[in-house]
């Protein structure tokens, strides 16, 4: 477990900013005590300082996880957000998409979101913008990237892809082995 280097921090924050934009500062300045990012075996964890200080006593090979896992660094140094970060991303998300009940299961099986399944979308969402996907009952299901800007979606046919899938809560079951 160690703090992130400058390059690593930049990679993480750039990725997060894609979804939550300026709300990023809310992750750092929290009213309920200081929080920090820590790297442990390629995984980036977002954890309260109290937990972090206590888990210093746990030896590196024995420490499995602390706080919330945000994602992992690939071998080439790229940062990939995991579904476990959804809690914080959905809390501060700038652009949101709601999908209809009949689109929930296809999305949870790892498919892209089709126009037919689109329930609502934040207005003036640009193209290739990170968005959080919700069910119609406001339950966060995952996140992805828009394929088209909101204005362009009108013209599309119902089977075309609106959101590219990036992560969904179905991964808790599907990828349990590799996620942690």
């Amino acid at each position, binding site marked *: 477990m160690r703090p992130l280097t400058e390059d690593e921090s930049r990679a993480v924050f750039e990725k997060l900013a894609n979804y939550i934009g300026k709300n990023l500062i809310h992750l750092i300045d929290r009213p309920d005590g200081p929080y920090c990012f820590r790297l442990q075996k390629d995984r980036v964890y977002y954890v309260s300082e109290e*937990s972090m200080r206590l888990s210093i006593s746990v030896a590196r090979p024995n420490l499995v996880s602390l706080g919330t*896992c945000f994602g992992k660094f690939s071998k080439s140094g790229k940062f990939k957000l995991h579904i476990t970060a959804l809690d914080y991303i959905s809390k501060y998300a700038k652009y949101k998409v709601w999908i209809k009940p009949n689109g929930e299961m296809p999305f949870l099986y790892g498919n892209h979101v089709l126009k037919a399944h689109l329930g609502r979308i934040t207005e003036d969402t640009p193209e290739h913008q990170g968005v959080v996907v919700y069910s119609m009952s406001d339950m966060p*299901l995952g996140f992805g990237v828009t394929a088209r800007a909101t204005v362009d979606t009108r013209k599309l046919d119902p089977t075309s892809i609106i959101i590219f899938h990036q992560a969904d*809560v179905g991964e808790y079951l599907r990828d349990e082995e590799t996620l942690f």
Partner: protein
Amino acid sequence: MGRRAKNKQAPPEPLDKKEYTSPKKLGKRKADDHQDKPRPAKKSKDSKYNPKSSKPHVKFADDANSSDGWEGVQDEGAIGDLDSLLGDEDDDMLRGPAQEFDFGSDAEEDEPAPLLRGRKSKQGGAPPNVVPTGLDDSSESGEDSDEDEEGRTTMANMEARSRALDAKAAEEAELDIEEYQEAAASEGEDDDVDMEGEEDANGDIDAEPFRLPTAAEREEEKTSVPDVHTVQRRMRECVRILGKFKRLAEEGRSRSEYIDQLVADIASYHGYNDFLAEKLFHLFPVAEAIEFFEANEVPRPVTIRTNTLRTRRRDLAQALVNRGVNLEPIGKWTNVGLQVFESSVPIGATPEYLAGHYMLQAASSFLPVIALAPQPNERVLDMASAPGGKTTHIAALLQNTGVVFANDANKARTKSLTANVHRLGCKNVVVCSYDGREFPKVMGGFDRVLLDAPCSGTGVISKDASVKINKSERDFTLLSHLQKQLILCAIDSVSPESKTGGYIVYSTCSVTIDENEAVVDYALRKRPNAKLVETGLEFGREGFTSFRGKKFAPSLSLTRRFYPHVHNMDGFYVAKFKVERRSKAKKEEDEPVTVEIVAEDGTVENKPQEDVGFDADEDRPYLEEAKRRRMKAKGLRPPARSKAPTAVKASA
């Protein structure tokens, strides 16, 4: 819960209708027994048919009004809010399986322990010594339910079948007589004189009076495959005779012969190995033991725990009902549990499940966390935590404050643990993978520690039947040894200075004494600064304070046992310790030691014991001799003996 979760406690099998129809019938009977209402045999049959004739709606209303009844509690308590949601479902529920529960509930009104709806103990409340009644009742009805279990799906169907069965039974003289006898027994349990004649008569009428096989016959039987019906009948007879041994036993046969035969029959009938069958058999009175073994054949109901970090039970129930899940609150003892009766969708893969709104968790695993009662801002350790049901429950009770250390020795299982922790949105959890015995060294000073110790799993046989055959005496020795080590580590990890806490909860999903009371008793002896306190669970049986010649500390009655046939949850054991400062124990030691000597005339005189200390002069020669020997062993040449070697020799 992840896929790996089944390694520890698999989600219980769905409880289909047949399970909770038949027990209800039994529940009715049981309740009748409980109220000690005299009733003839015919009436008992009638009461079985009551559900059809009486109107469910009316009944329901009645129940709701009664304050101490099951329904009443439900309506008034925390569950009340659900009713408004489920209001529109009411009709369906009454028509569906829930209907039967309502019938049952009026019968259970005077049952103090809040029980799960579902399979009820047939005799749980009745004192164990009322054996013949309960026995005939239970074994016979158990048989009934076995026979027609396959096709019984609907209420009407069930009635038709049970009617047909009863008709058949009426033809069979033997069964008829038994029922008559049972009725007679329930009419006058105290009235022994009357019954004696009756039962003797029965014995005569019986076409083939029961005779215990001799040792030789038993040997012979071992070589061949025993007939199931013979075994069944023999078990029934053995239980009956053991209940009133003096009167019913064959001349010249000892009680132990009957018990041996019964244990052997149980082992072969239910498929246990002999060792385990005997071990479990001795935990209960004879008739109750049979119930226990039967309950192990029936799956427990599927239960889920609402994740209060994400949602409320009312909202969750509403969401699941919309998905076609039929559910109800577990009982008044928990305000986060829901019992699932049937579901048109897989309950472990709904969007709500994936979003972490609930956890599939056996009802019994709520108990240790309820007993632990963690308070916000505490530091809590869960020593053996995978797959994380209890850990996430603790985190939810802490409301994501403080820190939870979730440890599990098995690294592979920490994956599902981590997945569950993240899915349920627990942000204060640190997952680590140590052997639990290393714990006070890694970190101590916890406010509360939960030790859900690795165990033989004799309480969860209905989930994992392999326990029946793969556990031997050695397993129990090894496990209890490990548990004793772990419990001491757990006690040492707790900070006695903690302002709000200083508690340990020890729990196992086993029912045996060696893994429960013996371990707790050992911990009490080894750590005088730990003492047992109330678990805070208002139901469950008290722990044993003595068992087959073993004496445990009297405070063990504060621990709680849970049984599948009584509480309709897995067999479970919960003990709660409070750890105090050690100095207190030392003070007691500092008091002058006095020896009580009882003089021959009976008077007791206290003499201060003479001071036992070290006498340096006296010890010197011994020390020197030891030093010489050590040097010799190292290959050095010791210096010549200074003086008085003879003294050493003489004393050595």
